[in-house]
């Protein structure tokens, strides 16, 4: 069994490291720093930390003001509030003005669990990836979340990163590269390609093991960058394996699956199946129960692979 750790913890630790190295880092929170792990930074750098209260629109706007004179603000809250509630401020004050603001949306996906549908953000990829100037990250595990956090501070421009509440299996190593717009190969294979992000990468790994017993050779990529999307890898995989399955803890419309389909349609169309939440809201429940009910488990990914292979030509 892989070690389990939450991506939000990786972010929290990396943010403190960044704070030590770079005095320009400032952190704003919507009274959720205990949950987002921004509190690690708060404890060490209280003079550079601001809990602006439950007012996400104001937090994003204030971040823009801080960025205008060279500070690097990290605005931290739940993914739903940052990307959905404060969307117009994200669009105009941050993206249209192309400000150097970093957005940390934790508690994304169904794996929020018992808090239920209002907190389970299943729309953040869709609404962020259509915004010009914005980069969108979705780290796969604790280690990658740290690297993504460091990368955010290096990039000059707005970046959104999705984090999760629940611990995810650690499947990457410190030495693995993290490059925006460059997917990481998790397993080589020739029959079909699974393009997954976040928790769905480890679910896909188990699916690949199941399918191996059936003689199906699966290629698996971790797409930690939703935008820019790794077009080259998508096109190459469709040419070499002839079938694609996408897997994400997100609505089926507008997310990673859609982003991949956009690339395929224009370049090298092959059959694609999408494992995602089927245009419905979530609900309260335990993480495993939710993933099963909403068909985001290894068996669901394996089923999608069998289905796409039936559609694959010759």
């Amino acid at each position, binding site marked *: 069994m892989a070690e389990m750790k939450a991506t939000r913890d990786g972010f929290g630790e990396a943010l403190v490291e960044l704070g030590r190295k770079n005095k320009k880092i400032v952190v704003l929170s919507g009274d959720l720093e205990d949950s987002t792990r921004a509190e690690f930074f708060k404890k060490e750098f209280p003079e550079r930390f601001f809990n602006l209260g439950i007012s996400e629109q104001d937090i994003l706007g*204030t*971040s*823009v*003001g801080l960025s205008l*004179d060279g500070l690097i603000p990290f605005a931290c809250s739940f993914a739903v509030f940052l990307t959905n509630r404060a969307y117009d401020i994200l669009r*105009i004050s941050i993206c249209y003005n192309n400000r150097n603001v970093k957005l940390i949306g934790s508690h994304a996906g169904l794996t929020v669990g018992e808090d239920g549908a209002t907190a389970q953000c299943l729309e953040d990829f869709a609404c962020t990836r259509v915004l010009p100037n914005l980069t969108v990250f979705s780290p796969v595990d604790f280690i990658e979340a740290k690297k993504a956090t460091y990368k955010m501070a290096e990039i000059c421009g707005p970046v959104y990163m999705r984090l999760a509440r629940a611990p995810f299996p650690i499947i990457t190593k410190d030495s693995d590269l993290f490059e925006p717009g460059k997917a990481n190969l998790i397993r080589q294979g020739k029959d079909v390609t699974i393009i997954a992000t976040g928790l769905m990468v480890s679910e896909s790994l188990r699916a690949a093991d199941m399918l191996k017993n059936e003689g199906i050779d699966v290629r698996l990529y971790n797409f930690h960058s939703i935008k820019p999307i790794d077009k080259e890898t998508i096109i190459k995989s469709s040419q070499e394996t002839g079938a694609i399955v996408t897997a994400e803890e997100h609505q089926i419309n507008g997310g990673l699956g859609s982003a991949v389909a956009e690339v395929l349609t224009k370049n090298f169309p092959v059959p694609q199946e999408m494992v995602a939440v089927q245009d419905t809201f979530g609900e309260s429940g335990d993480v495993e129960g939710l993933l099963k009910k909403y068909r985001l488990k290894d068996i669901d990914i394996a089923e999608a692979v069998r289905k796409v292979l039936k559609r694959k030509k010759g």
Partner: protein
Amino acid sequence: MTTDRINLDEFREKARQFRKEILETITEAGSGHPGGSLSGVEILISLYYYKMRHKPENPAWPLRDRFIMSKGHASPLLYVVLANCGYFPKEKLKTFRKLGSRLQGHVYAGVPGVELSTGSLGQGFSVGNGIALGARIRGVNFRVYTLLGDGEIQEGQVWEAAMTAEHHKLDNVCAILDRNGVQENGPVEEIKKEEPLADKWRSFGWHVLDIDGHDFEQLIRALDEAESVKGKPTFIIARTVKGKGVSFMEGQAKWHGKAPNQEQLKVALSELGF
């Protein structure tokens, strides 16, 4: 009194001239927002020609006072003032709202002298607070001025920002309300009652001044007082007339976002004494 040093007649003549240029700019564009541009003329002249420390030849001067036009539709007003200050050539005003021009329909940060692109109401105020907070963190001393519309403060984000500025005691922040009393579809008080405005802002912990926003003496005194107030931000309610200076536009909601035609421009300019 500080106003002794200033030739108010010169300011009044500037106001007359700027109103002409605002109307010409909007007429040339064939669209734009005259009502809320004409109401804010004296406010911006008081800021750019009296109160603010700024260098048109060096728009990025780090110690400059910042101005945020939160009511981003009043772009003709800001562009005319910036052009007259020398931030960019006045001929550029003819390109307002035209394809390829930096003079976008709503206030655009690509224009020299503009700090922030605005247009979606309620957003600039938070940004101004962020600049002020950043100045404090960095130990830099300058002031931040934000102009809000009275329709604009119906946006919830404005009240979030009002609490933030007070809570963090941002006494380097001065927000000015262009209280012209009219929004796109009618009188503000009929659409969403805002009075008693002074009481509201005072209850939010701000130092509040309630003045005639067309009276230079009152504006200058208020801006000076704002700078001297410590420990809290200042809110200036500048009572103005929408479409000020043009009889057929004054107080008229229909002139919120409509350009005059050549005939109407002629009448307006003659009323202004041109």
